[in-house]
């Protein structure tokens, strides 16, 4: 017969003020299986745990009920107390009388006490059916997958690889580098982005522990922490990277011109191209959407000029499979499309550009050789108006959050403008200047003095054309007047938005995302790099807008998490998994379809003892099983049980009150 010990916690005043704890103890003592019941101020404290340990030994208890806070809070603590007393930790049940009773029925002590009693009865009834369980040990594949080759992905990959753990880095575009490779200089130090980024890109390509797979996408992820299997679609590049030397003869001769994504469409690239001169890997790919040879079968110039014969028009997409143990997601961000700002004339006026377009223009390797020009007539602008918070902090346009980086990059842009066009003047329309960061406020203050920029606090209401100039009408809230500024060029500090593909990626990986499309962390404060799915981590703007220093920190944090995960050869796994009783299994295989992890397979077993005839039954791989119990409920012959949540445990709970 079961011998249950019940320990009811006061939780200081948290429970005791709203639940009559001594009465609960008296009540549970009346249950015949309960051989010991007591109360204490803080069960989770060391003396509280000591009471549990002592009672287990003294009263020869076979299962323990702790009536305290949520099991999500202290289940682990109390399980450890059981282990310390030499008892199987899974013989514990927690009755949640704080979150589910004292805190939510504060106005009715009697009802709260009654409910607490019921919750205790349920826990006692369940604990009677508890069985001894043992942690499962599963092997770990010590290889990490990093999705995205921007600065976040690069940093995470390098840090993990430096710990001598193999990394697979998957990048969608032909080169790693991401958004940072498009930047000219970076705030607040005005370091040249290329100068600090490209050495890291080269490190990635040459690192013995990094396998770089560019121009490819993750299409499937199966398995569980420590034992994932990933499928990567490597898009056909039509160039044999093994023989290509990157000489550039092909793209120099290619006759097809396409808008250049790297330069925000300001100039043209060819149909066979490398995204930018410092690309890693520095091998061209053929853009299948524009290449006339691939579309119409006419041309073939690149193949003719290639000495090495590296061009292969018959190349097909390739599926690569890798076994990995952890995933770092670093898919970055998109620049928000400002088209909804019709009052600004976005799309109608050529001389309104976005901040990233401006960034490319002032960049030394940009399409205009580092000099900003007006897209309409190619003249160098003198008066430039910068408008901040375009999209950000604007509920009407769909983004309620602050994009965090625009205040700083606009300040940087005023400096760059001043450097490139000495007699220019910048105007900045702003809502607030948010310069929280090391050296940021100083940077803004210095820029204001050095460049003589006019800061106007207020929103722009309208932009209209007057001759070849743009008239920017807005409010200067500090003088309470409407102001108009004559501008040669208007630069919109467009918001940072989540990558459009994030929801798809999240579904594919089995993680969640928020209403904007940013991937969700497990806890906003205390677990900011983990996701709710074990072994998947987030780095950079894919989680929320952030600047480069923060992105790099988060990427390194991910690397630390991955290294921690891989520290041992095996991983301990929760024993609350399903198992099948062969005797009862009818072999209907409904459970195979219900299992979201593919943990169930079929096997042939002898019909009876010593028989040669076989029948098919289901079999669960406990290493893969995550313990959802979907198979248990679908099994029509009740052959499957889920340890920790068996039918008898749950039915016991139901009938006990």
């Amino acid at each position, binding site marked *: 017969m079961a011998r249950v010990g019940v320990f009811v916690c006061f939780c200081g005043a948290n429970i005791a003020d709203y639940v009559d704890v001594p009465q609960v103890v008296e009540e549970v003592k009346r249950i015949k299986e309960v051989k010991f019941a007591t109360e204490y101020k803080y069960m989770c404290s060391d003396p509280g745990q000591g009471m549990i340990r002592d009672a287990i030994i003294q009263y020869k208890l076979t299962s323990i009920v702790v009536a305290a806070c949520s099991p999500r809070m202290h289940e682990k603590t109390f399980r450890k107390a059981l282990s310390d007393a030499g008892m199987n930790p899974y013989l514990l049940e927690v009755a949640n009388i704080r979150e589910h009773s004292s805190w939510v029925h504060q106005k009715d002590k009697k009802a709260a006490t009654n409910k607490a009693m019921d919750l205790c009865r349920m826990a006692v009834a369940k604990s009677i059916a508890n069985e001894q369980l043992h942690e499962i040990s599963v092997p770990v594949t010590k290889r990490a997958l990093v999705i995205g080759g921007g600065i976040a992905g690069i940093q995470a990959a390098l840090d993990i690889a430096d710990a001598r753990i193999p990394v697979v880095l998957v990048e969608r575009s032909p080169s790693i580098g991401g958004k940072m490779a498009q930047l000219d200089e970076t705030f607040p130090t005005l370091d040249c982005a290329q100068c600090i980024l490209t050495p890291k890109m080269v490190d990635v390509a040459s690192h013995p522990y990094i396998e770089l797979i560019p121009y490819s996408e993750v299409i499937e992820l199966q398995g569980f922490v420590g034992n994932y299997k990933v499928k990567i679609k490597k898009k056909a590049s039509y160039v044999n990277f093994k023989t290509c030397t990157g000489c550039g003869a092909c793209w120099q001769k290619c006759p097809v011109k396409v808008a250049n994504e790297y330069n925000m469409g300001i100039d043209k690239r060819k149909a066979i191209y490398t995204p930018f001169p410092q690309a890693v890997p520095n091998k061209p790919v053929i853009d299948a959407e524009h290449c006339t040879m691939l579309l119409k079968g006419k041309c073939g110039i690149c193949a003719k000029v290639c000495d090495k014969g590296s061009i292969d028009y018959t190349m097909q997409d390739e599926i690569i499979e890798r076994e990995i143990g952890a995933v770092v997601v670093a898919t970055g961000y998109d620049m928000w499309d400002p088209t909804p700002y019709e009052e600004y004339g976005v799309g109608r006026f050529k001389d309104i550009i976005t901040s990233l377009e401006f960034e490319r223009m002032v960049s030394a390797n940009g399409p205009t050789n580092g000099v900003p020009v007006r897209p309409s007539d190619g003249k160098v602008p003198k008066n430039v108006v910068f408008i901040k918070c375009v999209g950000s902090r604007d509920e009407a346009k769909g983004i309620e959050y602050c994009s965090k980086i625009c205040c700083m990059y606009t300040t940087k842009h005023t400096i760059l403008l001043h450097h490139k066009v000495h007699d220019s003047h910048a105007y900045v329309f702003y809502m607030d200047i948010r310069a929280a960061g090391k050296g940021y406020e100083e940077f803004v203050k210095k820029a204001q003095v050095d460049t003589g920029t006019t800061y106007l606090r207020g929103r722009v209401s309208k932009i209209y054309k007057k001759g070849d100039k743009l008239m920017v009408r807005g409010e200067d809230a500090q003088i309470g007047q409407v102001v108009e500024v004559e501008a040669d060029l208007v630069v919109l500090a467009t918001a940072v938005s989540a990558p459009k593909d994030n929801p798809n990626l999240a579904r594919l990986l089995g993680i969640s995302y928020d209403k904007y499309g940013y991937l969700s962390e497990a806890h906003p404060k205390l677990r900011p790099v983990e996701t*709710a799915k074990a072994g998947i981590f987030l780095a950079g703007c894919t989680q929320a807008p952030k600047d480069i220093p923060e992105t790099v920190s988060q990427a390194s944090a991910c690397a630390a998490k991955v290294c921690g995960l891989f520290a041992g050869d095996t991983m301990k796994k929760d024993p609350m998994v399903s198992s099948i009783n062969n005797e009862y299994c009818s072999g209907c295989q409904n459970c195979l379809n219900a299992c979201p992890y593919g943990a169930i397979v079929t096997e042939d077993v002898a019909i009876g003892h010593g028989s040669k005839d076989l029948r098919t039954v289901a079999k669960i791989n406990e290493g893969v099983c995550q313990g959802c119990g979907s198979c248990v409920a679908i099994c029509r012959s009740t052959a499957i049980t889920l340890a920790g949540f068996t039918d008898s445990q749950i039915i016991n709970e139901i009938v006990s009150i």
Partner: protein
Amino acid sequence: MEAEVKDQLVSIEKPELIAPPNWEPVIMGILCNWCSYAGSDLTGTSRIQYPPNIRIIRVPCSSRVDPWFLIKSLQTTADGVLVSGCHPGDCHYISGNYFARRRFLVTKKLLNFVGFHENRIQFSWVSAAEGPKFAKVVNKVTEDIKKLGPLHLYKKENFEK
């Protein structure tokens, strides 16, 4: 057709059985560990008050909930059942709540056919961040069940009468 069948059915619900004074219903709440249970914890941490009629059972996933649990609850201890899981698309176990959703639809129809009022069994999706929503759901379910009155047709004392 369906309406005709319904008319012929003898309902298990007996409105003539008047609830005794001070009667309080018992509601069995079966919540998934990752979303709704965490959500109900948040309701507690936020000190949002709700009626004390619900008794909560934790399961890993709403897909673990066997229709048997619902029937057994109504048969023995509860006047109503609430099952709550993650929002569709947000299941911690990828697709468990879709199985649950389909299963509950059928279970509800079956119990309805047998004669239980459809409000005896309710389903909801509450995420780990929706503490106030959980309180709202419990308020609604409790109100609904109170309106329906006690369920004791199958209970032992009822047969003895």
